[in-house]
């Protein structure tokens, strides 16, 4: 559903407020804006008596960026100079493991991997690290990330530790978290502008 992509309302900027009903109606819980697709596949947005049309790219560019939510979570122990930027609702953490060899046509061979569930809990994003707080704590410094991407709606992150991690969110948009983590990594690296976030973070 479109809320997996438009994780903020492009009118009121409220997060995770767009919802698609079973009958296909799309609206924002926060401001009441109603969304539909036009004949040329743009997004038509009605707020009260006002109606406007924008492309999906324009809608996404409207919601991208801005301030991190900065949740007030006193239970999270901050380190010196650390700012809590975002906290997820329930999420699942998976770790990549080797899973045999793929044997294809014409002697094609490749290592196979699978992602095994290792914990469930909440993801915290700060200006220094990612912390997955479940039964155990799993911490990844932003400097340790070598790639950040999304497959289906799960975040895929490779680390300089030699294995990749994946996080799937039960209710939230994975795209939102991909954007959050990428922005955090960019801010961490400061003036070095990132050219690609996958398959490997590279700089201009």
């Amino acid at each position, binding site marked *: 559903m479109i809320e997996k992509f438009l994780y903020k309302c492009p009118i009121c900027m409220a997060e995770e407020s767009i919802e698609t009903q079973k009958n*296909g109606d799309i609206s924002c819980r926060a401001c009441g804006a109603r969304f539909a697709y036009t004949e040329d596949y743009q997004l038509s947005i009605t707020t009260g008596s006002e109606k406007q049309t924008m492309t999906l790219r324009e809608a*996404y560019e409207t919601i991208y960026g801005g301030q991190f939510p900065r949740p007030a979570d006193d239970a999270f122990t901050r380190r010196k100079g650390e700012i809590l930027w975002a906290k997820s609702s329930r999420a699942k953490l998976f770790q990549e493991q080797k*899973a045999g060899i793929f044997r294809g046509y014409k002697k094609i061979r*490749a290592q196979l991997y699978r992602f095994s569930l290792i914990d469930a809990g909440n993801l915290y994003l700060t200006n220094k690290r990612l912390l997955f707080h479940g039964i155990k704590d799993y911490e990844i410094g932003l400097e340790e990330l070598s790639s950040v*991407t999304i497959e289906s709606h799960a975040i895929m992150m490779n680390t300089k530790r030699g294995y990749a991690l994946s996080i799937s969110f039960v209710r939230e948009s994975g795209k939102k978290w991909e954007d959050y983590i990428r922005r955090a990594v960019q801010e961490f690296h400061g003036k070095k502008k990132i050219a690609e976030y996958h398959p*490997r973070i590279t700089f201009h």
Partner: protein
Amino acid sequence: MFLDGIYGIILFCIKIGIRLKYRIHVDGIDNVPKSGPAVFICNHTSIVDSFFIGCFLPRKIYFMAKSTEYESAAVRLFLYLSRTFPVRRYDTDPISLKNAMRVLSFGGMVGVYPEGERTWDGEMTPFRNGTIRFLLAAGVPIIPAGISGAFQHQPRWGGKMGNPDIRLSIGRPIHSPKIKGKDQTREDVRSLAQRLVSAVSELTEGHSENR
């Protein structure tokens, strides 16, 4: 041979299903060389793109597919039969490049989505530098193609935006010089990327002179 027969039947059924479900038009099929090494590149708009390409191209195509698709045994068998091979999207993957080169070395055609993922908004995203570097290193004809209309049927985020006709347009082969990895310059990468983006965009928008 037995498995190929089964796959042929599966493909035939998928083709009938596609014809029943979608209004699909395919242009420029003659631009696909009948034999010899080549790389087929296309914009990636929806989960069904590979089915369209696999069903309507006149020769077998060895697609790079994301490694996480291979977790289920049933899907893995289907991917094996459809001649895909895995690539890890979240890491540089020299083995997948080696496999792609192996396919080219026996005269096969490799399929790649140079954007590296499906579009979120229906518009094309920048091509990955690694893909361009692979194409330069391979130095074989590049067959550009553009798909339009599929995104609206099945956008990445689910649901449906409409029911337009789907068009797969295949362009004339693009020839790029063969340049070994260590000799490739940023300008080589930028220049080929620009040519390919332009070719695929024109084919997607349906006003290519290159068909």
